[in-house]
C-alpha cells in the first residue's frame, strides 16, 4: 500500500457566514486507491468537493495535486484550470448536457485535446490542420467508454432522455473522457437499485486498476463504500473524526456514535 500521494489536503477550512462547513480538515488520497469521504448529512462532504474543484475558494488551507512529482496548488487555480490539471468530477444532482446526445456529451469532455487538434478552431476552419483524424479518435474513445458503461446502443439519444441509472453512468464516462488523474464522484450510487450499484462497484474498481488513477468518492450507500474503498475519511460537522482502512473505520466508536447516535445511558 505504498502508493504515492496524489492529493494532499492540509488544514482546509470553509465558512458560509457564521456556519462552519469544513474545519481544519487534512487528509491524503493516494494513486490507485479509492478514497471514500463519508459522514452524516450536512457533514461538509460536497463542500470538500466544491473546494477541490474550484467552485468555492477556501480562505484557509492547501490542496495539492501531485502530478509526476510536481505539486499543483488547487486553491490558486480557476475551476476550469483544475479540471485541465487532471481533476474530473460528477455531481450529486446529475449535470449532463441534456439536449446533446450521449456521444456528444463524451466528445465535449475531450474539448481541450480537440481544441488543440483543430488549431484552436481557426486551423480547422481554414483547412490548415487535419482535424478529421482527431475527431474520429475522439469518437473512438467515446465509443469505448459508452461500451464500457453499457450505453453504446443509446449513443445517439439525448442525454436528458436516458433513464436515471444510465445518466449516472454516462456522467462517470464523461468525467473519464477528460483523462483525469483524480476522479471525484459525488454520490454515484444515489438512486441506483442493488443490481446497478453492484455494477457501479465493478466499474469503479476496474477504473482504479486499469487506469491507475485515484478516485475520491462521496457515498451514503455503505455496501458501495465498504465494498470498494481502500481508505475512508469520516466527517462530522465539518471535522474529521476518523481516517483509515474500512475495517478500522467500521469499528471506530466515534464513527458508530456519529452514525447511530449516543448510546442511551440507561
Amino acid at each position: 500500500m505504498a502508493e504515492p500521494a496524489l492529493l494532499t489536503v492540509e488544514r482546509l477550512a470553509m465558512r458560509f457566514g457564521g456556519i462552519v462547513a469544513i474545519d481544519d480538515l487534512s487528509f491524503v488520497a493516494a494513486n490507485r486507491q479509492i478514497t471514500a469521504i463519508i459522514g452524516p448529512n450536512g457533514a461538509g462532504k460536497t463542500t470538500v468537493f466544491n473546494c477541490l474543484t474550484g467552485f468555492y475558494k477556501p480562505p484557509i488551507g492547501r490542496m495539492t495535486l501531485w502530478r509526476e512529482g510536481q505539486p499543483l496548488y488547487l486553491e490558486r487555480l480557476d475551476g476550469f484550470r483544475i479540471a485541465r490539471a487532471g481533476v474530473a468530477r460528477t455531481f450529486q444532482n446529475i449535470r449532463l448536457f441534456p439536449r446533446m446526445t450521449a456521444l456528444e456529451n463524451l466528445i465535449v469532455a475531450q474539448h481541450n485535446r480537440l481544441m488543440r487538434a483543430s488549431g484552436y478552431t481557426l486551423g480547422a476552419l481554414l483547412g490548415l490542420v487535419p482535424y478529421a483524424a482527431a475527431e474520429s479518435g475522439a469518437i473512438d474513445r467515446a465509443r469505448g467508454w459508452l461500451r464500457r458503461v453499457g450505453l453504446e446502443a443509446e449513443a445517439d439519444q439525448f442525454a436528458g432522455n436516458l433513464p436515471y441509472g444510465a445518466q449516472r453512468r454516462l456522467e462517470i464516462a464523461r468525467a473519464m473522457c477528460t483523462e483525469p488523474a483524480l476522479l471525484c464522484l459525488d454520490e454515484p450510487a444515489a438512486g441506483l437499485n442493488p443490481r446497478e450499484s453492484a455494477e457501479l462497484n465493478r466499474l469503479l474498481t476496474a477504473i482504479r486498476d486499469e487506469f491507475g488513477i485515484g478516485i475520491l468518492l462521496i457515498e451514503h450507500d455503505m455496501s458501495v463504500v465498504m465494498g470498494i474503498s481502500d481508505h475512508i475519511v469520516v466527517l462530522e460537522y465539518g471535522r474529521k473524526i476518523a481516517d483509515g482502512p474500512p475495517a478500522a473505520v467500521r469499528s471506530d466508536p466515534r464513527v458508530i456514535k456519529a452514525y447511530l447516535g449516543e448510546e442511551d445511558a440507561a
Partner: protein
Amino acid sequence: MSAAAADDFLPRAAKEAAATALMVFVLGVLIVGARTFDDGGGHLAIEWRMQVVAMGAALAALGRVGILFWRRHDPGPGLAEKWRPAAAALDRRMGWLIWLGLGFALALPALPFADRYVVDTAIQVLIYVMLGWGLNVVVGLAGLLDLGYVAFYAVGAYSYALLAKTFGFSFWICLPLAGILAAFTGVLLGFPVLRLRGDYLAIVTLGFGEIIRIVLTNWVDLTGGPNGLSGIPRPSFFGFPFTANPPEGSTSFHELVGLDFNPMHRIVFLYFVILALALVTNYFTQRMRRLPLGRAWEALREDEIACTALGINPTNTKLSAFAIGAMFGGFAGAFFATRQGFISPESFSFFESALILAIVVLGGMGSQVGVVVAALVLVVLPEWFRAFAEYRMLVFGAGMVLIMVLRPHGLVADRAPTVRLHG
C-alpha cells in the same frame, strides 16, 4: 360531462370574458383611446375614442368566450398537439424543402413577378435572415440572451459608411473591416458583461445597445448625429459602377456585359450579395457546430458548471460566441449601409433588436431553417399588410401569437445531433 360541470360553465365563461375585456381596456385606454392631434393653433389636443376601446374589449371578450366554448366541445389535446403529425411530416421532408428554398432564392430575380418591389423586399428578408443566423450563434447555440444585438449591426453600418466616405475604400475592403470592428466591439462589451447570466445579461446587453445608439446620436462630429450619414458610396460590380453615365475613364456594369442600362441591375446584384453573405453565415455556423468550439457553445447553453468541470474556459468560450455573432451583425450592417446609401441612428433602435430576437426565438432557438421561416413571416407579413396601415402591427402581433400557440417551442424545435455513432 356531469350537470354540475355544465352549470359551472356559464359563470366561469362570464368571469373570464370580463377579465379579458378589462385587460384589453387597461392596455388600450391610453394607447388606442386617446389620440393627439394638432388643433390648428400649434397646440396638441386630445381626442378620446372610447368607442374604439369598447369595441376592442367587446371583441376580445367574445373571442375568449368563443375559445372557451370550442375547448368545451373539443376538450382533446391543444392545437400544438394536433399539428404535431403535420409538423413531423414536414420535418421529414426538410432536406427537400431546403434545396427547394435555395433554388427559389437563386432563381427569384429571374422570375416574372420579380419587380423592383419584390426584390427589394427579398433583400430586406435576407438581411434579417442573416442577422437572425448571426444572433443564433449567440442566443441559439451559446444560450446568451442578447437584447442589444442591433449595436453590432450599427457598428458595422457606421464602420462601412465612415471608411468608405473618408478613405474611399471599396465595399469588398470595407466589409471585412466592418466585421472585424464589430467583433472587436463585441469583445470589448463582452468582457465586463459575460460574467452575468440569464436575465442580468439580457438587461446589460439591452443597455449597451442603447448606449451605442445614443453615442451615434450625440457624436455629431463623427456620425452626423441624428441627421445621419448620407452619400455613402454605392456598391460597384468589382470596380464597375452601376450607373447610366460612368465617370470619364471608367466602364460601367452595363457596358461591361453589353446590356442596356437598367437600374434593376444594382438591385439584383445587391440581392445576390446579401444571399451570398447569408449563405456564408449559415455555412460557417453549420461548420462551427461540428468543431469543438461550437460544441462547447452548445454545452455552455446546457450547463455552464458542467463545462467548467470539464476544463472548458467559460469566459473565453462565451466571448468567442459573442464576437462571432457580432461579426456577422457587422457584415449585415455594412451591407445595409451600402444598400441604403444613408444611415441614421433611427435605423438601430431597440425595436430592431427585439425583431431579430423574435426571429431567432420563434424560429426555434438554434434552428437555421426556423430563422428563415420566421424572418419570412415577420418581415413579409407587415409588408403585405402595409395596406392596412396602422393595423399592420396588429397582424404582426397576431402572427407571433399564432406561432406561439401552434409551435410553442419554435417553428423548428428539433435539434439535430452534430455527430452520430449509428448511421
